[in-house]
């Protein structure tokens, strides 16, 4: 139960989330700041999605206490994430041949 775990440092996680948000916005403006670097777009998209993934993971792990739940419970509730990935992968042919 949640009473058992030590409280994580929420303020630290808050600061990490805010720093990542600021970084995200900065990265989003890269293509504008360096207009001659056309190829930078792929990098910015990867960076942005990576940071969003880390932020979402932090929220789920600490704020939603997933890090402190039993393993089998975590597996069950993260299964929709797997299904969501399947959903996107199934749509990829539509992108490739669309």
């Amino acid at each position: 139960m949640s009473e058992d775990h030590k409280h994580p440092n929420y303020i630290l996680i808050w600061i990490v989330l805010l720093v990542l948000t600021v970084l995200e916005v900065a990265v989003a403006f890269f293509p504008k700041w360096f207009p001659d670097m056309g190829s930078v777009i792929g990098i910015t998209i990867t960076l942005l999605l990576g940071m969003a993934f880390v932020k979402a993971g932090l929220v789920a792990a600490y704020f939603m206490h997933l890090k402190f739940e039993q393993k089998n419970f975590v597996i069950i509730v993260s299964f929709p994430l797997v299904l969501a990935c399947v959903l996107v992968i199934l749509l990829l042919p539509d992108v490739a041949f669309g």
Partner: protein
Amino acid sequence: MSEAAAATPGDVRKQVLGVTDGKMAMWIFLGSDGMSFMGLIAAYVVLRINNLDNDWPSPGEYLGIQLTAFNTFVLICSSVTMVKAFEGALANDVPKLKKYLLLTILGGASFLGMQVYEYNHFFANTHGVDGADPFRLFLSGIWEGKLIDGEWAWSHLKGSTLFGSTFFVMSAFHGCHVFSGVVYLFFIYIGVCNGSWNKNRIEIVGLYWHFVDLVWIVIFTIVYLVETKVPGSS
């Protein structure tokens, strides 16, 4: 009888996952809700990639990134006040619980207020200042305006219908979640004021609230921040 009961292991059909029924139910709901969002996100990604050649507009050009970044900040802060409220609930510290619940409600309400401001801007606005072309982002697209003989002439951008409708569907679907969350939190707050609350309820409303925050982090990134247009290629 009681000794025999103590000797036999607990009924494995109960408490296998170590969570309360209510918490499990909320997680099941969040799983299905997450799938709804994922369906929208997947559709958005496919539509956008398939329409890159068809002049998918640059989000930074039409959406207010600074305002929404601030909105994201507000939502993240309200998530932190929610865990603080839960901390208060765990410690049976009712004043702390009430204070942070109220702050969370305020954060959610501010988020909604800013979203309304943003939408209002899209419906009615003249985005451009000092000679720049104004625009409108209607439910189904983008119009750019030009002043011709004292009259505004609106032209509809190619490929913009999808931009407008996908934007509104995703942000409004999320906005509805924030609204429900604010109402949900409000009733929980009333319960706390009346003394009818428990830690489990606070934790469950917290789960919902953090989920709404989590989804916004993803939507903000994909809809507002990701640029697919090479600068200078108009």
